[in-house]
């Protein structure tokens, strides 16, 4: 077993273990902070897959943006004197059964399918390829995504503003 394998196994264990804490923990703060480790673990898995740009984007957007937003969401939806930031579980047995069935079917499909794989590719920087693809074959989706972000920004600001009579 090489060092790479050991690092991979450690990363996988941390990712999956913290994801378990996210969905099982009763404390909302614990959930948010273990989501941090899940996101970092996924970023390291991206590095294993040779996706350098995506690993950086994962850390910047998920850890720097989405996680902070979720933390805001936790803090703003509880009164400050209510320090009991816990959540109830709901139908744990049925949920476990459904999740186990989903996991079984997906992993069965993943292992049984004969994937058409190519041999080992060289690791190369992907940022230039992604940038060129954005401005050539993915130009229309790129523009639509920017409009989507603008609409989401305006929509979110509209939704949370204090209602005054216009």
């Amino acid at each position: 077993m090489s060092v790479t394998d050991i690092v991979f196994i450690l990363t996988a264990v941390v990712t999956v273990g913290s994801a378990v804490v996210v969905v099982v923990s009763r404390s909302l703060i614990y959930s948010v902070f273990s989501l941090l480790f899940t996101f970092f673990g996924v970023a390291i898995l991206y590095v294993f897959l040779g996706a350098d740009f995506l690993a950086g984007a994962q850390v910047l957007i998920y850890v720097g943006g989405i996680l902070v937003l979720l933390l805001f969401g936790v803090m703003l939806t509880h009164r400050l004197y209510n320090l009991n930031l816990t959540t109830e579980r709901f139908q744990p047995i049925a949920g476990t059964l459904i999740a186990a069935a989903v996991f079984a079917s997906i992993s069965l499909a993943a292992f049984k399918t004969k994937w058409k794989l190519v041999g080992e590719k060289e690791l190369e920087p992907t940022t230039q390829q992604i940038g060129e693809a954005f401005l050539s074959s993915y130009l229309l989706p790129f523009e639509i995504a920017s409009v989507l972000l603008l609409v989401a920004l305006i929509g979110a600001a509209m939704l949370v503003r204090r209602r005054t009579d216009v």
Partner: protein
Amino acid sequence: MIELKYFLLISAFLFSLGVFGVLTRRNAVNVLMGVELILNSANLNLVAFSRYSSVGIDGQMFAVFVIVVAAAEVAVALAIVLTLYRVLNTVNLDRADVLKR
């Protein structure tokens, strides 16, 4: 080189954990965390196939768009959750069962 199936296994596990979180949580923010787990697992699959099969960079492009949509989704969803909290004074999804107050 690490085999593709291990990545698929991790991704399947994250996906089913996300489904579990969405199904069993009552707090709206916690349900959002489950959705984020699901999106991350889908992204992991896209990037894994981008590396191991012949699709090339396209898989990573899809993953970039998934990240963009996830960012937009979480912003709008949290705005909705905050509005829900202001109107109903709770983020328990079981009690969000009225159309108008």
